């Protein structure tokens, strides 16, 4: 299987504090990879490094075939990013947001038009294209935020707690989108505090105090810890 992320001996220090302590892991193309851990375990630090926003102290990180330190800009063209807190501009319209992201990702104007129409149609937002984001219901916003994050057909999309505080129906509809993207070959790298969502991942890693303590499929981990669900696995490791 093709590796989309390769991390070898990644270390990140802030002064004397070791936020990431010799991390080693791979993520395969098309898989849904759950990146779990307690608060302060070092997840955000790793995510920032994988996205090219922060440089590792030492170690080797390769994303979508490029070295994250030497070829940062090339990596950025191959990845999408979405967080729950901030993804769309509330005071721009649906159309303007799509245009903005298409521009940021350097999509040519011809392709942009096509993508715009396909996307508006797919999301059934044709009649709402000139509405401000702030006027949209949460479920629509989420769909749109995810769609613009993968507008440039990236190899991998990073989702940082995309469903925090979201109602149970919208949360599940969002996972429908994740399943669909993964089904279409996009690798999904996701963080969450909902342990039922950890069950939807092909594989998960669990971080604690800067180290990856466990990595495997939910089925493997539950067997290993004789646990009923991922909640029990997580509590076992992080406590």
């Amino acid at each position, binding site marked *: 299987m093709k590796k989309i992320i390769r991390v070898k001996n990644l270390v990140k220090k802030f002064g004397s504090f070791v936020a990431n302590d010799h991390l080693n892991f791979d993520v395969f193309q098309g898989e849904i990879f759950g990146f779990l851990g307690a608060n302060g375990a070092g997840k955000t630090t790793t995510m920032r490094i994988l996205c090219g926003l922060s440089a590792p102290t030492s170690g080797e990180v390769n994303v979508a075939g490029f070295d994250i330190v030497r070829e940062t800009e090339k990596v950025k063209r191959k990845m999408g990013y979405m967080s729950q807190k901030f993804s769309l501009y509330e005071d721009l319209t649906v159309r303007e947001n799509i245009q903005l992201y298409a521009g940021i990702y350097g999509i040519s104007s011809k392709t942009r038009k096509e993508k715009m129409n396909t996307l508006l149609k797919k999301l059934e937002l044709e009649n709402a294209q000139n509405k401000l984001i702030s006027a949209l219901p949460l479920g629509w916003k989420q769909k749109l935020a995810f769609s613009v994050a993968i507008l440039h057909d990236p190899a991998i999309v990073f989702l940082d707690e995309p469903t925090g*505080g979201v109602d149970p*129906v919208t949360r599940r509809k969002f996972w429908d989108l994740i399943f669909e993207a993964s089904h279409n070959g996009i690798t999904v790298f996701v963080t969450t505090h909902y342990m039922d969502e950890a069950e*939807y991942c092909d594989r998960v890693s669990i971080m604690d105090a800067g180290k990856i303590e466990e990595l495997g499929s939910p089925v493997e981990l539950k067997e290993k810890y004789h646990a009923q669900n991922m909640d029990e696995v997580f509590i076992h490791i992080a406590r």
Partner: protein
Amino acid sequence: MINLMIVVTNITKSYHDTLALHAVSLHIKPGELFGLIGPDGAGKTTLMRILMTLLLPDSGEAIIDGANVGENIKRIRQMVGYMPGRFSLYQDLTVEENLTFFATVFGTTVKENYDLIRDIYYQIEPYKNRRAGKLSGGMKQKLALSCALIHRPKILVLDEPTTGVDAVSRIEFWDMLKKLQQKGITILVSTPYMDEANQCNRVALIQNGKILEIDSPANLTKNFSRKIFRIRSKNMFLLIQDLRAFQKSESVFAFGQFVHFMGIYDQVKKIELIDYLTTKNHENIVIEETKPTIEDVFIKRMIT
């Protein structure tokens, strides 16, 4: 009404065109641990702010221990401790200075009420000279809780204390709340995590400014009289798609490692589902009847 700590009657509140609360009524008994369960934008914070005398309702009435929130502001503020959703302490004061400040404002001392906060505060006491802004998330939360308790309130109101908090810290936080409840404090807490409903004596499920249901968590699931199958197969994505396409399906939602399925009028039999999924080439099919969770109840009330 006898012996109620909080009585909310028909409260409505709008912000311009947005209806934040629509005829909300509930009551909370003394010593109760009461949960307000709902997603972002449901109206949880608005209701809490009204109870905390920080916001006036457009109509309706709220009484806290006999005092009206629109009239007896000073009395109410003395008897409630409030921990807002956003960290609201003074970032440039130290841990100890923040605590002393809140004690002084309420005309008391840290020493006088130390017994109440000891279990929580001792964990951050080693950092008492650190500025609040420099604390980690978990420590900030413990300091905020200590400050909310330092005047020995009758009622503690916490707005989403566990949002963005990992599963382990959430368990520890609920343990802390239960200890406070044992000391006789009435607690109103909001959360978007449905599973946390089970930690409360009673909960109100709230969505789009309306209360969907109020009851004990046990009753909520017990009174949910529908037949739910939990179903698993090798490919989750296709399983959900195929079940939704099944002509007798009413609702199909992912629930962790299973999909929860409800058939129209609860008429669907297990054997039918097995046959159907087999014709769709699913492998390793597991189908069994299961008990509802709070999320099943919430989803059902949301979509009907």
